[in-house]
């Protein structure tokens, strides 16, 4: 009688308010990254007279780096790289990992054992080390960074998709559909896949943050996007020797990185608390 599992409109609203700040931060940053380079000074042009100028110096809102390049312009361009890598690698993972996981969870048996054993092997390596190794092997480029990150985080998606699929397969509406004579295609597309999407998406939001960190780490170590294209990781690396004299060169991209990751985590948290309601209606 006291069906408190159904979230009320008010509690949903409260969650949205909780999620509002991160949403605004991410939206502003994404918009700035997309249109910013049109307005900010060219990220490549050098203003050598003002090299390593501090923030709020004339013409340079966030100062310049050691080559006299505008920090704001470079940070925004770095944001584009981060967003691209985050979204692209996660999308790739969702597609491949989701398919693998659903396949394993639905068919069980040997197919499951085969897929999951490979995934477990990938999982046995620390994510960052594996990504590093792949990036080093493939050679530094934006595309290879995406491939490296996708490959090393794939098992998480596959595992989640498999677990979700297995629990959905046990539900009566799936057996009911099968007993109607529905072919596997119908059950997979109409019942399983739609109900796996929401937990996967929630996880993906968290994973975007992780992918951005891995990208920054790779770039920091010189295995990511190559100069002069700016990336937050490589910018921090460039600023590292000058932490004493011009801390803003490393701190500005660092602060952006921090803000984005925090916002993504907060957002994912608020979504996850609402996920059961949006997901399986239990």
């Amino acid at each position, binding site marked *: 009688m006291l069906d408190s599992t159904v979230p009320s409109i008010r509690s949903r609203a409260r969650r949205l308010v909780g999620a509002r700040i991160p949403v605004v931060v991410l939206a502003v940053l994404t918009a700035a990254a997309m249109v910013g380079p049109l307005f900010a000074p060219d990220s490549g042009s050098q203003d050598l007279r003002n090299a390593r100028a501090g923030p709020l110096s004339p013409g340079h809102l966030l100062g310049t780096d050691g080559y006299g390049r505008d920090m704001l312009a470079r940070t925004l361009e770095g944001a584009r790289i981060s967003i691209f890598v985050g979204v692209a690698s996660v999308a790739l993972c969702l597609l491949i990992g989701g398919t693998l996981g659903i396949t394993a969870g639905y068919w069980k048996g040997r197919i499951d054992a085969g897929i999951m054993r490979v995934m477990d092997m990938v999982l046995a390596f620390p994510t960052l080390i594996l990504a590093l190794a792949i990036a080093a092997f493939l050679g530094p480029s934006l595309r290879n960074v995406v491939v490296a990150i996708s490959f090393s985080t794939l098992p998480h998606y596959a595992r989640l998709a498999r677990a979700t699929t297995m629990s959905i397969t046990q539900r009566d509406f799936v057996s009911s559909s099968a007993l*109607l*004579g529905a072919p596997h295609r119908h059950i997979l597309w109409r019942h399983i896949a739609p109900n796996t999407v929401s937990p996967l998406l929630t996880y993906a939001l968290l994973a975007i943050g992780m992918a951005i960190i891995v990208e920054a780490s790779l770039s920091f170590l010189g295995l990511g996007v190559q100069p002069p294209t700016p990336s937050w990781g490589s910018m921090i690396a460039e600023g590292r020797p000058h932490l004493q004299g011009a801390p803003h060169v490393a701190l500005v991209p660092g602060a952006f990185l921090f803000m984005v990751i925090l916002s993504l985590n907060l957002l994912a948290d608020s979504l996850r608390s609402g996920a059961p309601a949006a997901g399986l209606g239990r």
Partner: protein
Amino acid sequence: MTISPGAAASPPDTPPTPLLETTGLTQTFRLPTGAEVQAVSDVSFVLHRGETLGLVGESGCGKSTTVRTILQAPPPTAGTVTFGGIELTTTPPRQLRRLRRRMQLVFQDPHASMNPRWTVRDCIAEPLQVHRVGTSSSRNDRVHELMDLVGLDEGYLTSRPGSLSGGQCQRVAIARALALDPDLICFDEAVSALDVSIQAQILNLIARLRADLELTSIFIAHDLAVVKLVSDRIGVMYLGKLCEIGPAESLYRSPRHPYTKALLSAIPKPDPRHPDRLRRVNLRGELPSPTDPPSGCRFRTRCDRADERCSLDVPPLQTISPGHQVACHYPLSASAPVEMTPLPTRRANGVVGQSPTR
């Protein structure tokens, strides 16, 4: 083992045609521990067109598994299932899928049996869609027709199952099961999760549909009164075995298997004045583990008639009167109905005349 069709089950002028026949149906599961459980053991019966067979028994007796096994989900480990002249156990998967439109199952938990993301319309239309019946507009007409048939307001068409009550949801499930005009509908505890007044509504709906559509069905419930209300014949199961099967009325009036009698005597009567407040037959001991069922008759460990023969020979299902079979070496006699010692009714001041004997 073939069973002669019950005379009471169908009108005498039309020869009854068996829709479903199982022989030696057996379902064995292997537990993770390695132990094997015979959830259904050597169950044979016939179901005629237009007839409803009720299956009763306590939890774990295998009544649900029997129905799932008949529906080949999963197929039996032994025995045969003949449905409309077709042997289901040897039917290839593709053909079996097509046959499924002729047999439907209604689940116990109406909410769990619908995809929470779908609308009522989607749920009812799914069988039509799966079997590519009609055009989308004719399907839509059929959905409206079905909603009307089960007494649901069309305003609910766009609702999601989560926003319906248990009774409404079970109506949707029934509409969905009826969508393809199946030959056989199985109700697996379909009214057990509902409140008493809602259960009555759904039982009446099923009774009306049975009469109007001449449904053939198997009805499972643990409530014996519920089963009697909707069934022509009733089968009683214990530990995977069919102990007794016969016409509803005569089976309840004079049960021939000691287990049936014990089961019937345990029903709480909703009326302390009722003359049938039977003296209870208490079962000795507890339900044996299904992994290690007793030898011979599986009921013998709790039966006061059991002797050595019961532990040696498995009692076969024998016809004792037309359409009535019992699997017992020492069946109760038909002339001796259940003893009718009324239970003492309590007085308002807390004084009780006599405590029920055990």
